[in-house]
């Protein structure tokens, strides 16, 4: 009996035994990978379907991006779009994060993140400290002087007010006269509210004042603390705030703004811009963008065909 045991041990050491053992390991590994595939697809953080077949062609067309690690500058204070994962704060989660990763997957690059203030998003991009900005930023002519944009969705803003709307604010109009609005530095809503001053004067009311903050969360806190009467921003962000404080906040109304949400890329990289545009078109065609909107319950997403906004 002992002899047999020794023989077995010895046979393990022979070349054939070794190969046999490795074959088992490889086979086992392959089975594990095969088994985990559906699980990976099923996991919420990778909810998007496999990249569309057209992505292969795009990777062949833009080989320079393949295998690269790019830096995505974000202002991660907007749950739903980009914020820390409360369960694992070492990760960022949200629609913009997933969208960026889907684009990366399509073109063959991966992303790392750089957290900056909203007003610093485009300066970080133009100084070369970041390669791309996917942070729910609205593409305007003014901003297009600093970066090229690939737009993909209409802007739909919500007006956040304290519960009961004590100042009876009905939108970016003369109902805001005399009220205090909280906004992020650099938001497009800031000049829109400032421009009300003339109309307010005509009606004999005082002009609206604006408190400028560095991030979305501070604006919401300003209303909670009674410092501000309203905060106008992306309607989904406003909905998220109401969901977080249902007995203290409410959405007064929703307004459309003549802008589009966009992805910002450096002005001196037209090829990268075109690649992102092509990938975004494929993702939208395959329904992946809609899927992501649903996943993050951003119900009021108004996708439009991706376009480029650039100025010289």
């Amino acid at each position: 009996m002992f002899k047999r045991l020794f023989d077995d041990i010895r046979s393990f050491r022979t070349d054939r035994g070794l190969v046999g053992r490795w074959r088992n390991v490889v086979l086992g590994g392959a089975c594990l990978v095969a088994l985990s595939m559906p699980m990976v697809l099923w996991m919420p953080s990778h909810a998007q379907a496999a990249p569309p077949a057209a992505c292969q062609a795009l990777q062949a067309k833009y080989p320079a991006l393949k295998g690269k690690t790019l830096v995505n500058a974000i202002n991660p204070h907007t749950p739903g779009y980009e914020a820390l994962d409360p369960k694992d704060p070492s990760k960022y989660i949200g629609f913009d994060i997933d969208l960026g990763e889907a684009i990366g997957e399509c073109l063959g690059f991966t992303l790392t993140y750089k957290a900056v203030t909203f007003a610093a998003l485009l300066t970080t991009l133009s100084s070369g400290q970041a390669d791309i900005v996917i942070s729910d930023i609205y593409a305007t002519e003014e901003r297009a002087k600093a970066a090229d944009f690939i737009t993909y969705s209409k802007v739909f803003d919500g007006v956040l007010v304290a519960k009961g709307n004590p100042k009876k604010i009905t939108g970016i109009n003369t109902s805001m006269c005399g009220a205090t609005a909280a906004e992020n530095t650099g938001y497009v809503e800031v000049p829109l509210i400032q421009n009300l001053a003339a109309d307010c004067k005509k009606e004999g009311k005082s002009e609206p004042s604006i408190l400028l903050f560095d991030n979305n969360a501070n604006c919401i806190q300003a209303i909670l603390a009674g410092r501000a009467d309203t905060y106008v921003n992306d309607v989904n962000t406003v909905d998220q705030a109401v969901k977080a404080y249902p007995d203290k906040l409410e959405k007064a109304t929703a307004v459309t703004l003549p802008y589009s949400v966009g992805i910002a890329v450096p002005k001196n990289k037209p090829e990268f811009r075109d690649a992102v545009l092509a990938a975004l078109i494929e993702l939208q065609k395959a329904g992946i963008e809609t899927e992501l909107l649903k996943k993050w319950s951003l119900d009021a997403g108004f996708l439009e065909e991706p376009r480029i906004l650039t100025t010289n």
Partner: protein
Amino acid sequence: MELFLHYLSLPYLLQGIGFTLAVTGLGLAGGLLGGLMLASMQLSRFWLLAAVARAYTVIFRGTPLILQMVFAYDALPHIGLKLSAIAAAGLALAANEAPFIAEILRAGVLGVDRGQIAAGQALGMTPAVLMRRVIAPQAIRMMVPAFGNESVSALKNSSLASVIAVQELTLRSTQLASSTFDFFSIFFASGLIYLVLTSAVSAIQLVAEVLLDLDRPTRQERFARLLPWRRAELVLKGLPDHGPSLKPENQDHER
């Protein structure tokens, strides 16, 4: 309370301490080097060096640190110098600390009694020997409290690096608060962490002061000093005998 303890022990926040200390360390080390250079330039006999140092001090002491950080991070790349976030923050903090540290060094050196320097010169000491034997030992001792101040302020100023994407304690706290809405517990926890860090710096300062104290009492004396009936001893040990008239009269009573 439970949430507060949760955030206090959250690895994500604790890892932020590393970045905070890295920026502070770079700032203080660079600031000390720059300060040494600036101080020696200002104290030198060549007026041009002193003028250059003075101009640097005016610029970097006179502009806000947050501006210098954004400049190092976002403006320098436009002239081809792209620094990482930590390096940019460290550079800005060092450039900002240097004039303050230079002034501490200068004040320490100028604070040494002129008479002692004259005496050293009269004894034929070269400037280097004079610095090593007479000025430095006294100046360094006087500088310790000011250095403690400067270190604590550098540690707190490192929080400004949060505007240029350094993942330090403040940036991590604000991001976490934005995603969890637990403003109160999170800022309380990070405040306490800062307090522990600054207390550690204060402790280092106190230890340095004790180690450099020339009148440091021996172990027995340290206890004896606390006793209310104790009188300070006259230091006559080791001195040549000056006759009975100099000896304290009540010495026998004390023993």
